[in-house]
């Protein structure tokens, strides 16, 4: 994975599942369907939340993410629904799209 490109103006969103261990960013939106989306949001992964990928399981799935002072693990297909933008990109109203 290359570094994040520029900020607003260019497309810089990535899915959480594409980040490597140690990489981080800010949640920009949660996709996916009803139950899963709601659960992810209610666990605190809402737009604006700073996160960091803490570790991956031996078979690279699930991934474990650090945010709000605790650690949450998600399957890769669940992490696909979480979109991340680089940390410096906080000032763009309406997120980076």
């Amino acid at each position, binding site marked *: 994975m290359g570094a994040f490109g520029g900020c607003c103006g260019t497309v810089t969103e990535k899915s959480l599942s594409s980040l490597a261990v140690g990489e981080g960013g800010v949640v920009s*939106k949660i996709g996916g369907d009803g139950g899963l*989306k709601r659960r992810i949001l*209610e666990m*605190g992964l809402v*737009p604006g939340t700073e996160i960091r990928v803490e570790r991956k399981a*031996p078979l690279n799935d*699930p991934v474990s993410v650090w945010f709000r*002072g605790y650690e*949450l693990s998600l399957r890769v297909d669940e992490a696909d629904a979480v979109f991340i933008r680089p940390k410096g990109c906080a000032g763009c109203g309406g*997120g980076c799209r």
Partner: protein
Amino acid sequence: MGYTVALTGNPNTGKTSLFNALTGSNQHVGNWPGVTVERKEGRFRTGDGEVKVVDLPGIYSLGAASLDEEIAADFLLRSRPDLAIVVADGSNLERSLYLAVQMLEMGTPLVLALNMMDTAAEKGITIDVEKLSSLLGIPVVPTVARRKEGIEDLKKRVFEELKNRTAPPNSFSLPYGERLAPLFDRMEAFLSSKPDLIPGLPARTAAVKFTEGDPAVLAAAETAGIRRELEAILSREGASVEASLGYDLQTAVIERRWGFVSGVTAEAVTRDLSLKTRLSLSDRIDRVVTSRTLGLPLFFLVTWAVFRLTYALGDPLVEIFEGLFESLGERSAAFLATAGLSDILVSFIQDGLIGGVGSVVVFFPHIFILFAFIAVLEDSGYMARGAFVMDRIMHLMGLHGKSFIPMLMGFGCNVPSMMATRILERPRDRMITLLILPFMSCSARLPVFVLFSGAFFGAHAGTAVFSLYILGIVVAIGAAKILGSTLFKGESSQLVMELPPYHIPSAGMVLRHAWERGFLFLQKAGTFILLSVVAVWVLASLPRGVEYGSEDSLVGSIGKALAPLFGPAGFGFWQAAVALFFGFLAKEVVVGTFGALLGAGEAGLTAALPSLFTPLSAYAFLVMTLLYVPCVAAVAAFKRETGSWKWTFFMIAYTTLVGYGGAVLVYQGGRLLGLG
């Protein structure tokens, strides 16, 4: 005057410790109506009143995304407790507060128990209790439940709040911001002109919850016939809000709630940044425990150790219990015979009643020990790591990472393994695991395998036994795949699981948990097992005068009637049918039954069996023994864990069909290959 108080909070906040500290031994365990999630109740006295505490499932939110959340939300909404205690983790206040804020919005009077203050202090976290209390508008009591600190203070504050209830409840309104507020105003105005959507739920909160798509509120709006009107307001006014925010309304509501929580946390919490908290001991352990190289081997080692130790420690105790009941049976039989009771009554008491009670009690040691280990794994935080490293593999079969533990335990005994499915939170994962567990070859099936393999496969006996274990696993995996994509197709499996910091489990909690599990089994599954044992005794002993389980008994007649059915599987004779019938009591009984029926005793069986079986039909018979309906105790455990007769009968029918189909397939396939 009695009050009802709900106890709620996130998992891993010491909620159970707090419940125990509050109520002591004054507890009662049951189930929530209609579901098999445990419901605990306890009582404590304070001042001049008695308070009933209902322990709600440990949850992160009230969003009803899981069964546990549904139960908690439903209890708070419908049963309207007089007050709720929310247990928060002082060392991770932010995450704990989300649930508290949701409950505040519902208008439930609250007291916040700020638990694990010792851990918080170690991490350099200071919480301004006064400030937190004034920001939220509720009493906040610091506690360390494991050391029973702050408990009396908590009871006092709870009681004060209950007594002051005459005052109108604090109306709490979360600031949702200038973009969302006009939308909620419109909906609130509309809702205020109607009767309460859910009695006691403030109109403002109903509007918020409808907007975020809360299932309970959506359903209530549907029932009240105003769902369309509310949706019309949403689509009319919501679109512009969504456009200006940049995301959908559900995301917006939950994001604002978290925003409020973060704000409160930032004001009330100070961190001593000189303490390097992140590279904590937990983290260092995790570098090993979840590592690419060691993660899986360590997990296998731990679960294997649990498996070995459960049976190594439990088996001697089981033998003692068995011995006790056997001698008790013999003594009472001798006593009753001299007292002049008829043979059939003596046999009923010895083999039916005492034997029946014995066959229930022998499960206690294994259940007790296994659940002590499970409590240690869960309480320490390792269980979540195990699920984390195993999830990829188990998910291939449509199961959850934690399903591995009950499946492994199944090789020992299906009964405790079925009870171990309680570690799975989602009903779907639990049901599928329960349904495939009977295929894991328990240790009671081994004597049957060994006997037949020894008699028919000579030098290849070991391979034959091993192949049966593998067959069981393959059938279980296949069944999991099929069930997951048919009967449980609609329900998705989810992980989204916290990896809590490691902590040392308390011995008291572990023993309490193990005792509860064992005792509940005796209480709930005991009657069913006992009745089945008695029923089998009746069938084997009637009509009067026949030898127990012989050709002339009712069992023998049933065997003869069923025998032709087993023809295609290669064992169409009544002895096999009778042996399988008795195998329902306990699978190892198949061996003893053949011994008795062939008049050979168990020792002479190796020589006697070839008069009935060929090697091919013997293997088909073993396949049947492996796969058909598990023993009565496992069926009772299944019933207890699912709470459903419908699913229990389904399990009995489908395992038996799979067993029969497998046996026919082996026999007919073998004949086609010229093995017959």
